[in-house]
């Protein structure tokens, strides 16, 4: 745990753009969507612990807003941090893409676009990944598919 609190301190000095807290597992950084790309770049270029391995990108639909969650690992020290950003616009959310920093994000972002409808600016190839173009965004909480979905009582 000591290491992790150290990391929180180090990060909060280095990353002035966001709020660094200790989550229940990993240090968390919360930034505004417009500062996301800058923060990501700073994290990737850290000297001792460059967070160069993007484990996972995902989004959560909180009905009023979206939460975009990045799990990052440093291949030097194997420390994991979580980078989060809130997208307030629920109808047409958009954010800067980080696919130029981590190529794997290109496809994870495509998946998020496909399932949540979050648009990524500067994404090289933003197409639907699984579904056809005119389908809804299935992982949104308000998604309804009258034709195919089978609702069964809980």
């Amino acid at each position, binding site marked *: 745990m000591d290491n992790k609190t150290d990391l929180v301190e180090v990060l909060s000095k280095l990353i002035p753009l966001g709020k660094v807290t200790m989550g229940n597992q*990993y240090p968390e950084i919360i930034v505004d969507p417009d500062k996301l790309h800058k923060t990501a770049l700073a994290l990737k270029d850290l000297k001792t612990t460059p967070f160069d391995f993007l484990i996972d990108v*995902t989004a959560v639909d909180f009905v009023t807003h979206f939460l975009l969650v990045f799990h990052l690992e440093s*291949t030097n020290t194997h420390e994991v941090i*979580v980078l989060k950003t809130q997208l307030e616009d629920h109808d047409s959310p958009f954010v800067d893409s980080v696919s130029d920093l981590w*190529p*794997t994000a290109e496809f*994870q972002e495509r998946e998020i676009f496909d399932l949540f409808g979050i648009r990524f600016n500067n994404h090289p190839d933003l197409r639907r*990944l699984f579904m056809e173009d005119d389908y809804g965004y*299935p*992982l949104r909480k308000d998604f309804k598919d009258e034709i195919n979905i089978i609702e069964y009582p809980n």
Partner: protein
Amino acid sequence: MSEEIIKNIMVGEHEDYLINMGPQHPSTHGVLRLEVSLNGEDVKKVTPHIGYIHRSIEKMCEKDTYKQIIHLTDRMDYLSAHMNNEAVSLLVENALQIEVPERVKYIRAILDELSRIASHHLWWSAFGMDLGALTTFFYGLRDREKILAIFEESFGSRLLHSFITPGGLMHDVHSNFRKDTLEFIKYFRKKLPEYKSLLTDNIIFHQRTKGVGKMDKKTSVAYGVTGPSGRGSGFSCDVRKIAPYGVYDQIEFNEILKNDGDVFSRYLVRMEEMEESMNILEQLIDKMPDGNEYTAKMKAIVKLPEGEYYQRVETARGELGVYVVSTGAKHPYRVRFRTPNFSNLFVLNNLAKGGKIADLVAISGSLDLVIPDIDR
């Protein structure tokens, strides 16, 4: 009219010779479609198209309780079913801070290693077949059958076990479990040299794999290629080492790393992992406590405290991450599976560019893709 269309196709926008490998193709191992641009035999570009077997497991999980999620995780990477089950179970246990019995941890680790060997068996079989050595398929499956027999005796199923549950195991393992596992290790140690002389040492195999599909460590990290495919490029990404779970911190084992990054080094990583897994198994069997406890005390209805949880587990193909957002209800609010094959697939274009069609087959075989794991 029709001739005009043909003309447009032939010399229109892209003068590439486009072929579709898949969704039904012998070497894509499932319903994966690779759109390949060719220049003669040379591959210019590979565009993977996925989604043919998407079952929206993440959406289904939002309707299920934590115990019910287990049976869905089986169906992602069906060759690492135990590891997938374990990921969710560990997440729930860590969130509720339940301490499972020591014996359960050992059994879980044994199951992990057995399914890793079984998964590598199938990969070896299919990889040989991709390269045209048809006999490997039967030798690999013959040996895998022994593991499946152990599984069938204990869990009643061969592929989709749903055996590891939050809090422990579904029920105790069979009384022959320990004996059978030791017998398998003895049997397979005799058969592994055959694999070596049949494929590993073969000159044609060397020609086909050495220097093909080079992936350096940087690419591997950037594309998030984990598991044996990543370790073949020197990317130290074994979750068993870097974030130990279960009893892996009490076991002595080596992380297999190769630095060449070609198809052959990815092949060697898996071959040596099979041997290493057998060493781990021997230690685990030795240390496994006697008794018959197989589960911790748990409430009938599992409710995670409000918050976000993340659990990493090493499957046979790489790092599986489970991300759960809980609102305190008995259903998770959002479940996300970071599956290893999803990241591993999209590096394909980088590796196959400039090679031949036959190289593309070798490379996609060496990445060991399981398509339901990509689509989820």
